[in-house]
């Protein structure tokens, strides 16, 4: 009902003196701040923020919100992102003052309930991983990767082994090489084979005693479980290297197989994916890491520990890498993950993965006759279709299809990732969608495939805008409003 669809900015509607929030009068008998602080530290005037009334503020942002697609309004099959439904009860629990209004540095004695929850979460995530200990600290998956790689570096340094390389499949997410570089490693790319899995020959050819870590995503970004995993981890371990799991795809294997059981030494979780932290239009996330016993001493500090006196934050970790952020963790997201796991229990967690895989396979089956799916006709929780033939034959690109889907009220799949599939359309339906939704989505895709190419190039047709000029945005960057 946002019929204006005006793109007026807060700054353009600002009027000096308008405001949406009033503050109390000063109730303490001390002089004004100008007399308490040195004049040269003071600004002449406060920052030139916009001035808007409360109604205009609310209307502005409420109307903006309706210009988003979101899980709560649309099917959102964004591959690799696990856009499952985020239960409302989690939001209610996270807002409890006894959880939301805790200071991060308050004494352990005054937050035993919080520490209990976090301690449980450490243990639960270790159990699901099949690994020995968990640090909840990292703020997102990428920071989990960094933290774990720093742990690996510290581990090898402690063992006095000079290992400088991290091997990464070419199908991996961009954060993997970026994190490896940040952790001070050289990255080496490993090819995918025809099945979309790790090319063992390539791996073996690049594996040597300089190898610190092999980072694998399993199921991988093509939605395939790499059945060579035992061989792979065996190879790495024989070389004295560690195997890291990018856990972004844990949604496919909860309670079915555990990374620790298939040879993984360290991994991160994306709690905001697998365990329903709402994605918040780009975060917050939470990226705990789980590791095998020998790596525990190097984990970031603090961990939550339990003694007969209750729970406490354990900072006494002399070999720890330190910390990758201030304060304990993205507790608000962990809390939602905790609620989720507690709601599901052992069977429920397994059901999640079974249904995620079922849904993905169902959609794949509905589409595979119509679309090119390079890597087989079975998948785990997601699959990657390709528009390469459509592109060749009818000049229809993955982007065209993605944009046109918006007209049908569906968010687009992930496109052009993984890089190993040309014109990739990476589709992850998640377990929370119904068969009817999947069918309607498949119908839409099939219909789109038959549409006029020019019509598709111009899509979307029914949204408030169509095909923003991204080149212009990047070449002549306008990154802020100016008066």
């Amino acid at each position, binding site marked *: 009902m946002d019929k204006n669809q005006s793109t007026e900015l807060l700054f353009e509607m600002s009027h000096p003196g308008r405001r949406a929030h009033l503050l109390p009068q000063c109730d303490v008998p001390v002089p004004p701040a100008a007399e308490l602080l040195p004049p040269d530290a003071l600004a002449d005037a406060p*920052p030139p923020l916009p001035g808007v009334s409360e109604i205009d503020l609310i209307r502005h942002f409420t109307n903006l919100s309706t210009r988003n697609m979101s899980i709560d309004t649309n099917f959102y099959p964004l591959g690799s992102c696990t856009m499952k439904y985020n239960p409302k009860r989690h939001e209610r629990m996270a807002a409890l003052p006894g959880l939301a209004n805790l200071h991060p540095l308050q004494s352990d004695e005054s937050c035993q309930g919080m520490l209990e929850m976090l301690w449980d979460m450490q243990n639960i995530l270790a159990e699901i991983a099949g690994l020995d200990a968990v640090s909840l600290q990292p703020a997102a998956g990428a920071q989990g990767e960094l933290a774990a790689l720093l742990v690996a570096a510290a581990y090898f340094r402690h063992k006095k082994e000079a290992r400088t390389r991290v091997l990464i499949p070419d199908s991996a997410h961009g954060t993997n090489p970026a994190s490896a570089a940040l952790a001070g490693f050289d990255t080496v790319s490993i090819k995918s084979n025809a099945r979309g899995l790790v090319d063992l020959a390539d791996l073996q050819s690049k594996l040597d005693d300089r190898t610190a870590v092999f980072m694998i995503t399993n199921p991988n970004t093509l939605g395939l479980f790499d059945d060579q995993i035992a061989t792979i981890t065996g190879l790495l371990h024989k070389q004295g290297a560690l195997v890291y799991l990018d856990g972004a795809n844990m949604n496919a294997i909860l309670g079915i197989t555990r990374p620790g059981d298939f040879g993984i030494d360290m991994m991160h979780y994306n709690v905001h994916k697998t365990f329903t932290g709402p994605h918040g239009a780009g975060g917050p996330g939470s990226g705990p890491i789980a590791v095998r016993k020998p790596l525990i001493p190097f984990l970031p500090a603090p961990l939550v520990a339990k003694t007969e006196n209750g729970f406490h934050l354990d900072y006494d970790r002399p070999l720890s890498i330190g910390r990758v952020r201030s304060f304990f963790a993205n507790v608000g997201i962990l809390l939602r993950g905790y609620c989720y796991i507690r709601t599901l229990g052992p069977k429920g967690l397994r059901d999640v993965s079974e249904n995620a895989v079922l849904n993905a396979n169902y959609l794949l089956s509905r589409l595979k006759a119509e679309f090119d799916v390079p890597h087989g006709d079975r998948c785990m929780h997601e699959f990657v279709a390709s528009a390469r033939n459509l592109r060749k034959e009818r000049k229809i690109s993955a982007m065209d299809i993605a944009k046109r889907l918006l007209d049908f009220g569906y968010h687009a799949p992930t496109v052009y990732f993984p890089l190993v599939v040309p014109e990739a359309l990476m589709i992850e339906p998640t377990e929370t969608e119904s068969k009817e939704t999947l069918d309607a989505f498949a119908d839409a895709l099939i219909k789109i495939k038959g549409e006029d190419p020019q019509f598709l190039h111009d899509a979307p047709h029914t949204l408030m805008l169509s095909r923003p000029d991204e080149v212009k945005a990047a070449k002549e960057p306008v990154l802020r409003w100016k008066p």
Partner: protein
Amino acid sequence: MLRLIGVESIADLFKNIPPDLRLDRPLAVPGALNEIDLSRHMVELAAKNRSADDAPCFLGGGSYDHFIPAVVDAIGGRSEFYTAYTPYQAEASQGSLQAFYEFQTMICQLTGLDVSNASLYEGGSSVAEAVLMAMTVTGRTGKVVIAESVHPEYRKTLETYLANLVPRVETLPTPHGFLDPDDAKKAIDDTTACVVVQHPNFFGCLEEVEALAALAKAKGALFVVSFDPISVGILKRPGQYGADIAVAEGQCLGNPMAYGGPYLGLLACREPFVRKIPGRLVGQTVDRHGKRCWVLTMQTREQHIRREKATSNICTNQGLFALRAAVYLAAVGPQGLKETAELCTRKAHYAAQELTKLPGVKLRFDRPYFKEFTLAMPKPVPALLSRILGRKFHAGLPLGQWYPALAACVSVAVTEKRSREEIDGLVAAYEVELGASGHRHDLLSKPGERLLA
């Protein structure tokens, strides 16, 4: 569904997983809870904590009990915002994109700098990202100079991030509660990528930012400042005193303390460094009809394009909290931010004035301070604070955990939310627990007793 897929059972879908790698037992996690029992369980956990609602909170150190206007929760609670992903598809994400563009603009306004990204994780890793950026910008890998008065956890984070990289972190002591420019001058050299200070610093004290900026500049190093977004309601903005990169913890801008996260990392810089900035950037453009709109831009800096050569590894950032900060800043406006800063300053000074009237209690540093200050105590600190907590005050942070030399010191923070009555109550609690005889006892509830049973 199985029929269409062409399998007999769901188990068939998992046949790619070698049988010997499968888990042959249920996960050892607690049994399922329905919503009623989950709610009860969480309420019970919450009741085992003493929150800032149960005991007025005078803790600071990077997280503050500022007031969160209801409008922030109202907008942050719009599920079209909080259940969307990163705005990859611009047509389906104009709500978030426009909001982030407004956020970036307001962060520029707040910092007096030219460019802001769309958020980082939190204050600590933002310092690290700023330093990494300074290294790329300057091409210097010799060292990074940082004041000891920077938040100890931010410094630890920086050290962790740099552990396997070339530059050395040189930490300059701040025995008088601030970085002496003379000391800085000695440390900064031609290999120094940047000088990092926090202003107001971890002790609440002001730094000699203008002098330090000049010193950095003189040596071609960047000046990186971690600032308090509330403080710029009255204090000069980083751009005004010569910061090249400003970072901050944005929790204070409408986000709950939440035991430490999720929070919001802010990062703004001068125009020439824009292509080295880490994280998402939203830019304005036009669509094919010429209509103004917004997109994620300059993505070639980022990991999903540039991979190991990216400016940062960050992917998921803190979108929802950037939105909340934008709503907060727009709600308070210039005047509200000023009043908030003013109230914090005055209430902190009132608290310091009253607390230092107690025998043996002294301001540890003779420096101007903003909303928190450091007190030297005549009694062992942790036990003292624990006893005052029994009187329902989060009375301050014991500094000894980070600064052994300050083992007798407490850091006290006061926000605009604290009333005079609460401050007087705190002073009375200190008075009693310090064993001073005074007149304030009647302000107090007995230990362990609720104000309202």
